[in-house]
């Protein structure tokens, strides 16, 4: 009975950077609470396609398997999300084929693995850190209200997964828009009492080419974010702050 049930997967494959892609279909046994990761793990143990061809197991990136590290992000049924929290019974309750593809906004390393280095480089550009004087004893940090913590904490749950960049129409090969994730970090650090002391540097970093102006207000990012980070609010907040800074800059000239 239940053990007879199977799960069908169609996987977009690519042997290495810059190479042509091709598709493989797999059929693996179903089990309760199954997610896309366990389907891919089943392929590792028996790497045979639905039409009986022995192939190399699908290559994908994963680590925590509880949707907090961001590694296992891929395009599942046309939508970028984490494959650990993609439960088979929810995404294919009727047994339809689950289609897996790598994200399109980053270079493919192999199969479903992409290189998201640009997101980490962007964090350098916006100086997403508090400038500490040192790592020795300097007493407690600044007092903060519960309200401030409740605003900052959701913003700081960004796991650099790339879903927002994948969903954003303004992030593409022809544009250098930095994307929602890094802009959200500008807001986060400019909210912190010590971080705010260098707010101007971060705003300057997103005022020019490829900065906050690049947002086309499609609002796809906030829909795509698995952690429900208010990205549209963050972009708007950074946008207002940069406008203010620009105007002040002119007035002071």
């Amino acid at each position, binding site marked *: 009975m239940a053990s007879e049930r199977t799960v069908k997967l169609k996987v977009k494959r690519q*042997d290495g*950077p810059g190479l042509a892609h091709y598709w493989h279909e797999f059929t693996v046994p179903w*089990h*309760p*609470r*199954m*997610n896309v*990761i*366990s389907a891919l*793990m089943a392929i*590792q*143990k*028996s*790497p045979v396609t639905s039409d009986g061809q022995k192939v*190399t*197991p699908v*290559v994908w990136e*994963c*680590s*925590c*398997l*509880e949707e*907090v*590290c*961001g*590694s296992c992000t891929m395009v599942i049924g046309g939508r970028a999300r984490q494959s*650990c929290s993609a*439960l088979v019974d*929810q995404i294919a309750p009727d047994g339809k084929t689950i289609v897996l593809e790598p994200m399109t906004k980053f270079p493919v*390393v*192999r199969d479903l693995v992409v290189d*998201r*280095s640009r997101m*980490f480089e962007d*964090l*350098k550009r916006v100086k*997403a*850190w*508090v*400038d*500490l004087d*040192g*790592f020795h*004893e*300097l007493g*407690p*940090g600044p007092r*903060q*209200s*519960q309200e*401030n*913590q409740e605003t900052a*904490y959701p913003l*700081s*749950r960004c*796991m*650099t997964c790339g879903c927002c960049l994948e969903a954003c129409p303004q992030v593409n090969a022809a544009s250098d828009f930095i994307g929602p994730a890094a802009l959200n970090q500008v807001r986060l*650090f400019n909210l912190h009492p*010590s*971080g705010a002391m260098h707010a101007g540097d971060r705003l300057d970093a997103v005022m020019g080419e490829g900065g906050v102006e690049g947002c086309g207000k499609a609002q796809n990012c906030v829909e795509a974010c698995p952690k429900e980070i208010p990205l549209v609010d963050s972009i708007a907040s950074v946008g207002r702050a940069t406008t203010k800074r620009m105007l002040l800059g002119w007035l002071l000239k």
Partner: protein
Amino acid sequence: MASSKSLTRSGSGKVRRVVVVGGGLAGLMTVIKLCEAGVPVALFSLVPVKRSHSVCAQGGINASVNTKGEGDSPQVHLEETVYGGDFLANQPPVKGMCDAAPSIVYMLDRMGVPFNRTPEGLLDFRRFGGTLFHRTAFAGATTGQQLLYALDEQVRRWETVDVEDERGERVPGEKMVKKLEWWDFLGFVVDDEGVCRGIVAQDTKTMAIESFAGDAVCLATGGCGIVFGRSTNSVINTGTAASAAYQQGACYANGEFIQVHPTAIPGADKLRLISESVRGEGGRVWVPRDLKERRAGREVPESQREYFLEDKYPGYGNLVPRDIASRELFKKCFHEKRGVFNAASGTNENEVYLDVTHIPRETLHKKLAGVLEIYEKFVGEDPYVNPMRVFPAVHYTMGGLWVDFDRAANGSLVIGSPRNQATSIPGLYACGEVEYQYHGANRLGANSLLSCLWGGLVTGPAIATYRQNVGKSAFDMPSSLFDKAQRREQKKYDAVLAMNGSENPYALHEELGQTMLVDCTIERHNPTLDRVLAKIEEIDERSKRVGVTDTATGKMNQGAQFVRHLQNMIVLARVIALGAKNRDESRGAHFKPEFTQRDDANFLRTTLAFHAGATNGSPNGVRYAREFDYALAGKAVHVTDAVDISLVKPRPRKYETAGAASAAAQPGSEPPRDAPGPAKTGATA
């Protein structure tokens, strides 16, 4: 001698770096302290550092700040940590850690970690296992993630800082931190005198193998939960680096001590943790009194529920340490067959209820949203309304690479001493979960993030001192030394690529994991352990007939990489199982029904394991030592397996009694207000 030469640049102009392997909390903290001491670093990480396993820690970090005026202090923290660890931890390092904890949390606060706050704007603290005090600072229920991000940000800042030589001159194009992500550690470069001079690693995007010089090497590569197949660990936690270090001669200590966390969600790919903070905020563990109870958990009336932890341990209730809670859950499900009925499967599963439905939704949302979200996403039930169903899972590696410490006159550590966190291989340091030092036989909740950070804070200065006195720099050694090590690892990798046997490595790993999980965790029986050891030998033998699932060269090859990790996991499995076999007592997480008592006369000692190598005819044998010497700056340091119990005298653990875990909680000081049972904080066994 070395004084005339630049400590920053070699004769050929290369920046003299220290190598840190591992980009979790411990590795990042070490990097930061090295940079602060002016030491340039090459940081290697298997995954982009923001994806390290530290990200999974949920509940918080301990620091006796005593914000709630309960009479908490670092001394009480020390005593409770040592007591929780069943007295197997050397006490001076624990004292150092507990004394520093408040300043560590303050430093994190300065970095911008969004810790939860009190109405006055101070850091908020909650309760955790093994204590009656509110000692755990937290950022929602994703504290590890928030801490890791804060350190990642600081390291990124160092990635933008130029290296300067002694004269303050910038070295063009060189930054203080050179980050090499997606690199897998293979082994060390060791010179003729046995000194570690660097590492060999593999770029997992291209599978290119390279050697790197380092004036010292620090391993901060985490635990080895994946040896047990499924656990609460990230899939990267195979212990491959620790195993490689052990096989190259490093001593591995207390391998048999593996923590099983009482509350996780069973799953086919992973056992997902439900944080102890859930009980810290008032969550209750129960099973229906009636074995035949068929109603959903929320419909079972209060009178029909058995709160078995609260009943048996009135002193600490649901917050008994993890080893005790896990054994009680195991007993309830396996021995008494009292696991709760599951309507979907139609049987009583090996699960108990973890219930937060009595706590106001607003409180849950502010303090536990992150973890309750995991339950909701992966189980598909609302934990705000339905009691969660949980079961124990392998969670933390107390054992690990043996490391030294330098005891100060006040009982703490001599900061800056090159002995601190030094392994038995000169020039090799270790910190974080990969080493054995802070948690004895059982780790208390919310002490792991602390030990990672403290480990890094100690290791940085220790390496900086070591480097000052290293004499000859790795960067002045002949390239043949590095070429040789590189060839050695290349040969091993080529051999893996050529494996074309019939065994599937992933299926073999599942078998290994199943054996270890079923027979080498909560209850350990000697006859069963014999079977486990025989099974490990069988798997080891079969692993030689593995067929690599991917033969690609010049590009990412996870199949070949996994074979290497599997080989290394088999070696660690043997250390764990044999250590368990040899220890005929029960202590902390190590429990033998044939020997239910702790036996201090025979076993209050550290298990010191060395890889026997091929020399004695048993290529994978383990040699256990009672003492050994290791070299530090050319001088021999003598080490024995005796545990330093100079600060807290061993006594039996009695969590039935409130306050039993610490004698130092001052009589007359205000007892914790919401502690269960009579709060006699002065009482001891």
